[in-house]
């Protein structure tokens, strides 16, 4: 990843939703707000895109620059909540703001996501006014990234990290 090169000013959002209609919608909403968008239809594809390969013991930090992840909660296989947890457990990805979307207004679900580190929880159908709430989180991350880009303390080297979908297994590996 080019450390010294200035970043594009456009923010890159990764949208995750198994519904094609909702993916079209979120993509249009985000693009209308001048975001660069990558949309995938599953949490596992999202993890692949982010460089976190499931079941493998190492995490390769790629040249993928994602500034925000917005994901549906209810998805077959890995849910948006599972995705959120995996991202927050990852050293290289945990600072990427994550937003959860759901068609169901379940307070316990909302709280769980916020407690796990989600920045926002949007009820579907997502509105333009919701998307406008994203910019502050992105600005905050960008400021933090710029502060992190110290010449000596370069955190962007390729890291190796032991990952496991099940926390208890990590103990056995080490």
């Amino acid at each position, binding site marked *: 990843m080019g450390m010294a090169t200035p970043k594009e000013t456009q923010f890159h959002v990764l949208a995750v939703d198994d*519904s094609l209609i909702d993916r079209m919608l979120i993509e*249009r909403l985000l693009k209308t707000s001048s975001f660069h968008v990558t949309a995938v239809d599953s949490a596992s594809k999202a993890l692949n895109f982010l460089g976190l390969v499931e079941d493998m013991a190492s995490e390769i930090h790629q040249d993928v620059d994602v500034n925000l992840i917005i994901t549906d909660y209810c998805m077959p296989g890995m849910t948006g909540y599972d995705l959120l947890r995996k991202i927050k457990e990852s050293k290289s990805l945990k600072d990427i703001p994550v937003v959860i979307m759901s068609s169901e207004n379940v307070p316990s679900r909302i709280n769980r996501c916020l407690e796990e580190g989600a920045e926002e929880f949007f009820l*579907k159908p997502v509105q*333009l006014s919701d998307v406008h709430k994203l910019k502050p989180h992105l600005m905050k991350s960008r400021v933090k990234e710029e502060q992190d880009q110290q010449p000596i303390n370069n955190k962007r080297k390729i890291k190796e990290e032991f990952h496991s979908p099940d926390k208890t297994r990590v103990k056995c590996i080490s």
Partner: protein
Amino acid sequence: MDAGQMKRQWVDYIKSLFVEGFLDGQFLQLQQLQDENNPEFVVEVVSLFFEDSERLLKDLSFALEQKGVDFKKVDAHVHQLKGSSSSIGAQRVKNACIAFRNFCEEQNTDACLRCLQQVKQEYCLVKNKLETLIRLEQQIVAAGGSIPTMELSF
């Protein structure tokens, strides 16, 4: 009819769809997301909705015809249909799905079958309405006009 008259017809028609509850504010959101760079956005999403719904309704019929009905599966299909109808603003379809899910929970096959009929009916109605609306839009554009930007004031 000139473009101006067609536009007024379009406005009256879409207003009636809101008043009768076929569409809700979400449909206006879709219109707002359409612009010169994405002039076909609404048609694309609506077409997707038709395809998606028809597939789901088939799957629902099939699932409910089984000897041992898998209510989890039925509920999953209804959840999907509820989601997509909500996303495009097809209010009556969405509401019919909400009622449907309650009966899935109760695992009541007969009630589910009745709900399915209800959902099918609402779907057919809104499909006709949307097709009419889109036809009107195409006529306006063909006559050199542009689709009015709606603001919900009713």
